[in-house]
């Protein structure tokens, strides 16, 4: 049964920009221009869902996330999160949401993470036994218990991000908004953060924005795609993959010369090319036959066949191909 915890109805945000950039005449006649960052966005998220919010740079993902968290005022439409209007920033609303921004540091660099957590404990009024058990549990899960008392500026980026994540959910919010939570992390740290997020999703609703498709695949079950401020896709991850389930990509590495694009187009779509290889996209029932014919004309050194990667599916959506 649907139990929406987040509802956006025609939400939009525009910014006023000064058209006249000249120093003196700009003061007298600023020539204000209105630029829409997000327009008429409507969707809802149910309790316990994990939603990926995707789009190219400047699509309006972060603006929408910021409207949902009450950081910026929506200039049109209505937003309801946990029964509150986010921009009113009611204390109970703020106590029940958490926001992790990969590019913004919530921990004080001159102190250790524990000292920052202790301030959060006072601000969020977390009962001391709960605070201690959460810190202990989460630092153990993310394997950062040993650096809890180390000055933040001396930590690696991965350790710092894990501790930022703990700081954002120390108050046990019902909804967790994540904006590029694994940006700049190494593979091991990314893996650990994703595992932790999956663990959290058992108890919390997650809205994730990321350009790293592995974050999306491993954490989210639903995908919302926004392009130029408008939602163009909203469905489950399974359905998104299903729409490309009949397509396979073959990476063909040639022993000698490469065929022309025109030659390859008779067998499928040329997805990418480099010095000695070409990626060809085709229906899975035809791809083996196509490779057989191509190899007769152009000897192959190696072949790799794979399902369509999510980033290419998403790229197709961005470009309006699907």
């Amino acid at each position: 049964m649907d139990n929406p915890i987040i509802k956006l109805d025609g939400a939009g945000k525009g910014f006023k920009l000064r058209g006249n950039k000249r120093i003196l005449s700009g003061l007298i006649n600023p020539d204000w221009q209105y630029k829409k960052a997000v327009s008429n966005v409507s969707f809802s998220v149910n309790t316990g869902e994990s939603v990926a919010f995707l789009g190219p740079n400047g699509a309006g993902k972060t603006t929408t996330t910021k409207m949902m968290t009450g950081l910026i005022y929506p200039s049109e439409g209505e937003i309801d999160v946990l029964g509150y209007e986010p921009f009113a920033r009611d204390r109970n609303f703020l106590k029940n949401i958490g926001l992790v921004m990969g590019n913004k540091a919530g921990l004080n660099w001159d102190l250790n993470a524990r000292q920052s957590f202790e301030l959060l404990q006072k601000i969020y009024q977390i009962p001391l036994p709960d605070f201690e058990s959460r810190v202990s549990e989460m630092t153990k899960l993310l394997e950062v218990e040993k650096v809890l008392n180390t000055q933040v500026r001396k930590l690696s980026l991965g350790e710092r991000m894990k501790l930022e994540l703990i700081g954002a959910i120390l108050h046990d919010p019902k909804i967790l908004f994540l904006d590029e939570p694994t940006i700049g992390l190494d593979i091991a740290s990314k893996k650990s953060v994703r595992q932790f997020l999956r663990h959290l999703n058992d108890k919390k609703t997650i809205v994730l924005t990321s350009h790293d498709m592995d974050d999306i695949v491993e954490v989210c079950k639903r995908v919302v795609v926004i392009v130029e401020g408008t939602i163009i896709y909203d469905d489950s991850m399974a359905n998104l993959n299903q729409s490309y389930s009949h397509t396979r990509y073959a990476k063909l590495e040639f022993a000698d010369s490469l065929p022309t694009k025109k030659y390859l187009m008779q067998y499928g779509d040329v997805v990418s090319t480099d010095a000695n290889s070409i990626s060809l996209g085709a229906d899975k029932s035809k791809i083996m036959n196509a490779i057989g014919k191509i190899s007769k004309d152009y000897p192959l050194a190696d072949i790799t066949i794979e399902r369509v990667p999510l980033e290419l599916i998403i790229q197709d959506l961005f470009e309006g191909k699907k």
Partner: protein
Amino acid sequence: MRWLGILLASLKFRIQTELAYIGNFWLELVSTFFFVLTYIVFIDILFRRVGEVAAYDKNDFLFMSLVGQLTFYTVSRILAPPMGRLVATVRTGEFDLTLLKPAPTRLLLYSSSWRPLYMLYTSVPNIAIYVWLIEWQGLVMTWSSLAMGAVVWLCGVVIFSTFMFMLAYPVFTQGDATDLVGMWWSTMSMTEFPYDKLPSAIKALSLSVLPGLLMTAGSTQVILNKSDTNHLLLGASIVGAIFALIVYSFFWSRAMLNYSSASS
């Protein structure tokens, strides 16, 4: 009580931060200490020659300098840093992290900008010199004039806070206000003189454009009973402070509506 708890926790946090790199303030302490000594020597030489200036003798002047020091430290350590922080964090979008906390935003903004130890270490020695030099018995001061002067001074604090915020406000509309916020320094440079002897029009104008003047010369005038218009100044200060609170509140709401949360 809840807000007091958050304030105390935030101040404790700031002290912990200061203790992480203690010692930054020593040069400033030495610098301000020598400024105070030089100023005191100047006052001594001046009043040896002229006896009094505009009905203020050396002792009155030292008292005005004490109020001036209290005002300077209040503005420079309590009122100006939050606005500097506001401008810096709004520009980078780090202000998001303050807005997301379930506590009054301005309480967090102010308390997270203060440096309690720095405030004490740099102000107390200089203020103590004045307290020691003033002949307290020689001041024409009563308990009621002291109370009235304190109210004028507090109204000045409220008005100066609004003035500081209005300097910072363009960061929400234009994207920067760093230089504007730095202006507080120049408005504080003309606060220690017997302004009550100025012509009325200039007096009103100077009080309007230099809010620091009300805190220093204005409150000194009232405390030392230097003018017949003390009650008028008190009334005007209260009205000014109420108006300043309304202006602050109105423009704060507008600032929040205009906040665009930069993605740094």
